[in-house]
């Protein structure tokens, strides 16, 4: 990116702190879907244990509606803020430094913990295939190799993510087609034998919603690469909407094929539902294929998470919300290499704990908090800059309905989480409160408010509030 381009965008990015503009819609799709697809290979099926088969399906579609709202709001705000950091950059201009610090931290922990969980699953699957395999070196190796790839360049990283995500998604389609489900005359008959309806009533749907998030968790991370897009206003809406559509189709057929092949009781307790569905077919080709699909989905997710967590950390550092040491980009690869390397031992430390459910719960809780703030930001953004006052790459229709619907659905999801994991929620809130306290007491004084908002102030008119 030349200095002229930077000036045109009204940015005051110093040399050595600018990222490469090399990404297109394909990479945005790969980043969003790559992070999320692993949720279709595992985790989502706990919705069945919590709410039964129909409760799971209801939770799936309610969560899909939530993500449609989140993505619409993200794209509208993200398309006018072509900076690394995604929701962090939005919080920076719309809510101020303290909220931006919290959103940035939540994003970092959402992705760093998800990355640790992905690596843990890679180790667990290998150990399950053969108990002689020691999972630890493979957990460490997968994180090291993917971190090295991220270190060497964003283009190669996300091109690889595109390929492995596509293969992983194709394995689900092949499973559906080869089971004969697509041509089955009596799908309803087959499903009625295996599913268990709505055993816990409507409260089961609320309880299932927190695990329904697995189907889509991380798709909003596509906005974190906004600064690295060749054309943000084109790549971001196209890539993110195509990604969401892919995931909605993937989630529905995953529920269908698993519910069709695996009895609900077994499915609700399965560690790898799609792999178990392949086992039920008894076809060795499908079993091997789903093993490969599960592994690739985990690696694609970890790869995307490293990318997103480092961009959020980098953006916070560039704005002095954390020490500016991390704001340096690699002179040759133009990647935020210090942020990438710094977050590696943190993810490894979480992976070493081996507590997959705890790690994932903290990741989901952080994500839900970011979504709540996203809805609040959208309401404030439209008040600050009503339609027509600034150029938008995309306009979310029906405002404020998306924000209100998202907040209502988020309240249900958080209530569902409270029922099973209130201790984790309390721990998470305490952590973010303590971090906020540190920021206010020790860090806020280093933030130059004028410089902090300068890029936005030079591009947009004075806000209405």
């Amino acid at each position: 990116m030349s200095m002229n381009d930077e000036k045109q965008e009204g940015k005051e990015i110093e040399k050595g702190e600018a990222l490469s503009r090399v990404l297109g819609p394909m990479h945005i799709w790969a980043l969003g879907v790559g992070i999320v697809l692993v949720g279709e290979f595992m985790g989502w099926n706990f919705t069945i244990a919590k709410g039964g088969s129909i409760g799971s399906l209801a939770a799936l579609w309610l969560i899909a509606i939530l993500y449609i709202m989140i993505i619409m709001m993200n794209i509208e705000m993200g398309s006018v803020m072509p900076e690394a950091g995604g929701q962090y950059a939005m919080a920076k201009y719309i809510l101020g430094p303290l909220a931006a610090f919290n959103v940035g931290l939540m994003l970092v922990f959402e992705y760093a913990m998800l990355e640790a969980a992905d690596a843990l699953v890679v180790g667990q699957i290998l150990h399950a295939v053969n108990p002689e395999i020691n999972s630890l070196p493979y957990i460490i190796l997968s994180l090291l190799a993917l971190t090295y790839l991220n270190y060497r360049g964003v283009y190669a990283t996300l091109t690889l993510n595109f390929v492995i995500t596509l293969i992983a998604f194709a394995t689900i389609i092949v499973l559906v087609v080869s089971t004969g489900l697509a041509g089955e005359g009596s799908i309803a008959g087959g499903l009625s034998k295996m599913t268990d309806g709505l055993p816990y009533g409507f409260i089961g749907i609320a309880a299932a919603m927190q695990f329904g998030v697995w189907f889509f968790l991380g798709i909003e991370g596509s906005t974190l690469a906004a600064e690295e897009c060749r054309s943000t206003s084109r790549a971001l809406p196209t890539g993110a909407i195509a990604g969401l559509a892919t995931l909605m189709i993937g989630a529905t057929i995953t529920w269908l094929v698993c519910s069709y092949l695996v009895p609900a009781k077994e499915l609700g307790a399965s560690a790898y539902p799609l792999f178990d569905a392949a086992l039920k077919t008894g076809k060795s080709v499908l079993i091997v294929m789903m093993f490969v699909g599960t592994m690739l989905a985990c690696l694609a997710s970890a790869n995307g998470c490293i990318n997103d967590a480092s961009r959020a950390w980098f953006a916070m550092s560039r704005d002095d919300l954390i020490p500016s040491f991390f704001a340096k980009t690699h002179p040759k690869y133009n990647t935020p290499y210090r942020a990438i390397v710094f977050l590696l031992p943190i993810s490894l430390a979480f992976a070493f704990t081996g507590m997959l459910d705890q790690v994932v719960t903290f990741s989901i809780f952080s994500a839900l908090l970011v979504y709540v703030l996203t809805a609040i930001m959208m309401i404030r953004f439209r008040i600050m800059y009503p339609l027509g006052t600034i150029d938008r790459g995309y306009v979310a229709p029906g405002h404020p309905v998306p924000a209100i619907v998202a907040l209502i659905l988020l309240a249900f999801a958080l209530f569902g989480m409270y029922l099973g994991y209130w201790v984790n929620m309390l721990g998470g809130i305490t952590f973010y409160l303590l971090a906020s306290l540190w920021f206010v007491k020790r860090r806020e004084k280093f933030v130059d408010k004028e410089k902090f908002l300068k890029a936005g102030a030079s591009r947009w008119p004075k806000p209405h509030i």
Partner: protein
Amino acid sequence: MWTVINYAAWGLCVLFIVLFVIDIIKTEKTGKNKNEHE
């Protein structure tokens, strides 16, 4: 056989760490010199 493969995985971990360390040291040195030059 799996013991050998497990050790090979550990070996690759060490290799990646060495690659990282070499590249980071090189980058920090080059970056510093470049900035000083500028």
